[in-house]
């Protein structure tokens, strides 16, 4: 998927553990792990809002769009 989740980068910048984020957000650690590893299918605005609020960042700092490479032809 071309949407990359940079949650681990932001956590490292804020020197925060995933467990602390999960405690402060009130979301289970397993669900946050799904988001961090890029296995999530979607993210709610409310969750994104909480992450941005706690990590003091913008949605663009968490999510990044990298287009898939076109298949080589020939």
């Amino acid at each position, binding site marked *: 998927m071309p949407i990359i989740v940079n949650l681990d980068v932001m956590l490292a910048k804020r020197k925060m553990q995933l467990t602390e984020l999960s405690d402060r957000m009130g979301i289970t650690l397993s669900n946050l792990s799904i*988001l961090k590893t890029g296995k*999530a299918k979607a993210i709610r605005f409310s969750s994104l809002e909480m992450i941005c609020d706690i990590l003091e960042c913008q949605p663009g700092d968490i999510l990044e769009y990298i287009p898939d490479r076109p298949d080589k032809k020939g």
Partner: protein
Amino acid sequence: MQGQRTFTAVRAVVNVVYYVVALLALLVVILKSMAFIMGSSELTDTTRQLTVNFDVKAFPPKDTLPPQLIYGELKNAALEKKQDLYTLRTTARSPLGIYSFIITLLGAIAVVTGMGWLRKIFADTTATEPFRAINAKRIRNIGLLLIAADAARLIGYFIFNRMTNPYFTPYFQQLVEVGNSFWMGLLLLALAVVYKRGVEIYQENQLTI
């Protein structure tokens, strides 16, 4: 959770019905096999002899059999005695007996398999987590089994007529009910598609943070 107790009760009932049906199917197959192995190959006394029976509807000339109508106190209603219903009796080792044995065996396998799938659907499902990908396949399989059962009945009807009618007068047909399983099967196939979509939405919801 609401509906949890009903679900548990239905699951228990399905479990019991499965074992009862499996036991009955086994019993029928054993009895048919015993009749096939030990039964006489010649039809002697139909009143005492253990025979393989087929219900048939005969078509004699109409003028020979006038309908007998019994009128009761209910207005505009009459009880008609059916004159043209017969039972074709044959021995277990005759070609028709072998045909009946094969049909019974296939029917028993189909019923037990279908009930087994239904039992597994209930065993793998909970009221809190109703959507499982494997259950969509099981619902589809039960639907296909029901359609196949009706198709088999229809084919069996033609085989039976082909095996009997050249040798009998008046002409008769086996009494079979075709159609109900077909529609039920189609309904289950449609349900399987809806259920499969439900599984996809459920999985997507599970992966939404």
